[in-house]
């Protein structure tokens, strides 16, 4: 029930080896590289008249640039047996949790080889291999996470579920119900709030009655911590404790991370409403982390270059795979509504 602002200077860092630091940096670079590639492809073929429904990647596109520290700091503690549920802004978590990059890219490009065979799209990623899911409905990804946690604990495993929403979502009813139920039943779930200061155009101050959502842990008798810094190591430290507690049968925790929406709410958002734009570029967590790892002697030019080259290679491969994959067969548009209307049978 405590509110903790973690200062990275005071992080105990136990278990935070240089190798891990490097790997977390590389993960953040991979995520950013992936989203930069999406950004390019998303906008590439929407001109001359920008049309949201046109192009190789149509529809709403919510990118998570700036929020990589949250994903990487958490998922480092997880294996593919643990569950992660995300929101309309899911890529950073999907990648950090180890989702196959090709399947992810193919889904975003609406291809038959995608995670959901092109049916789901970027807000609806369901990956049985990594127990990853998401929901485009605010806060409604929390409740299913309870059920994954429930199944894990009923089966006597120490697997856990991590459920993520934005700070805007913390004012939705599902948030409250989920925290209470998880607390009463001591479910192994860690609730994460990504506070990027904005819910589309509405600033946190206009939507939220408390300065920290971690304060809300008191309403459920569970531990709550706020990480003030958008720093991967701070997230890693705080999330690690909560995840261990959940694995040990200690029940749920709530963590809010003060992170950063580096770009618009979705692509095409001119952000005219945004009063804090000026300082944003300087707050990009990746260069910040890069500097500190350089200062610590963990990164040098070569390692940075290697991280970027490797990321680019992986992303290029995934995007090339997506682009060269077949689009779904239109005659199969009504398949998969029921298990007994799967493609096979729909064909017949």
């Amino acid at each position, binding site marked *: 029930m405590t509110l903790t602002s973690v200062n990275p200077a005071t992080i105990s860092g136990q278990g935070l080896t240089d190798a891990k630091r490097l790997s977390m940096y590389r993960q953040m670079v991979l995520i950013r590289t992936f989203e930069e590639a999406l950004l390019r492809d998303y906008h590439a073929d929407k001109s001359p008249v920008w049309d949201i429904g046109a192009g190789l990647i149509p529809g709403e596109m919510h990118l998570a640039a700036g929020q990589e520290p949250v994903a990487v700091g958490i998922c480092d503690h997880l294996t593919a047996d643990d*569950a992660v549920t995300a929101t309309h802004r899911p890529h950073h978590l999907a990648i950090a949790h180890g989702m196959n990059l090709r399947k992810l890219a193919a889904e975003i490009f609406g291809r038959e080889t995608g995670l*959901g065979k092109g049916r789901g799209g970027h807000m*609806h990623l*369901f990956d049985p291999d990594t127990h990853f899911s998401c*929901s485009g409905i605010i806060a*409604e990804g929390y409740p299913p996470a309870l059920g994954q946690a429930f199944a894990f604990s009923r089966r006597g495993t120490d697997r856990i579920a991590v459920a993520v929403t934005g700070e805007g979502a913390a004012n939705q009813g599902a948030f409250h119900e989920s925290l209470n139920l998880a607390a009463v039943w001591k479910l192994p779930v860690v609730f994460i709030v990504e506070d990027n200061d904005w819910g589309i155009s509405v600033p946190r101050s206009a939507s939220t009655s408390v300065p920290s959502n971690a304060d809300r842990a008191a309403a459920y008798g569970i531990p709550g911590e706020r990480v003030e810094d958008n720093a991967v190591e701070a997230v890693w430290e705080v999330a690690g404790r909560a995840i261990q507690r959940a694995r040990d049968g200690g029940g749920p925790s709530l963590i809010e991370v003060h992170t950063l929406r580096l770009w618009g709410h979705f692509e095409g958002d001119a952000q005219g409403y945004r009063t804090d734009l000026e300082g944003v570029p300087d707050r990009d967590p990746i260069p910040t982390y890069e500097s500190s790892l350089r200062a610590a002697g963990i990164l040098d030019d070569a390692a940075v270059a290697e991280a970027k080259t490797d990321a680019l290679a992986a992303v290029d491969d995934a995007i090339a795979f997506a682009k060269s994959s077949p689009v779904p067969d239109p005659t199969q548009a009504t398949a*998969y509504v029921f298990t007994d209307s799967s493609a096979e049978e729909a064909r017949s």
Partner: protein
Amino acid sequence: MTATQTTIAPAAITRRLTTAKAMAEGIATEMAMNPEVFYLGEDVGAYGGIFGSTGGLLEQFGPQRIIDTPISETAFIGLAIGAATEGMRPIAELMFADFMGVCFDQIYNHMAKIHFESGGAVKVPMVLTTAVGGGYSDAAQHSQCLWGLFAHVPGLKVVVPSTPYDAKGLMISAIRDDNPVVYMFHKGVMGLPWMAKNARATDVVPEGAYEVPIGKARIARPGTDCTVVTISLSVHHALDVADKLAAAGVADAEVIDLRSLVPLDRDAIWTSVSRTGRLVVVDEDYLSFGMSGEVVATIADRDPSVLRAPVQRVAVPDVPIPYAHGLEHVVLPNASRIEAAIRAVMGA
């Protein structure tokens, strides 16, 4: 698919159960065989379900599998969804269908769509049970059927038993189904000791496991002059009226118990109506934009020329359910309204 009449070897069956007991027995049968099945909801434990759906189950299976929840429908239905995606087979009870508005997002945007959005990769094998119907002055927020809403959104099977035999067999089929199934039980067919009972609310029910296939209508009463398509409690009203009018020489009506709205057994409707040429639909849900229109359209889609008279729809005339007994009973599809409708299609 055409309608079948249930035939049971007569020797084996003498035991008579109420619909409530048959439903609970269906649950118990599957729970005994499959440890992944559990039941959760409000007052389903010690209370045994407000409408008797879980009578005796707590004693048999204990609080780990028959689970009372907080009044948090979004959270616990979502929990069931998540547990189902991990391979468990949860049954979640929404105490009254009238309360769907506090949790419908989990139901139609998640339970119903995850299989599709995942391109078939994830299954959601769960049952959502819920009580429906009026007739006992529970007024506008506790008397609705609302099955038209559940049936309108794709991805849910919707079953609505009218007899003890079907209540057990459809429950077993629903639990075994790999798809989400909404199981709607009318309070008036449950045979509750504290509510006016239909005469057929207690009937023979075989022991052991048996399935009633989901999607196959039942010819509750064969007839030649007109077709009454209906479901749930109204089946019994229709049967009573049909017997009376047959005896009076007015009409030999065929009564079809749809048993499920999704899948809708359109062939059964068509086969009967194309033969009789006269259609009455009896629906305790609201008249417009629901089941009754869909049944009528099923004929008009194929060949409206088989209809020898205007169809008659006996439903709640687009009014909230009034409290006062005398008002409620005129808006419900009661025997006198059904009789008038049959007389009208017969031109009698």
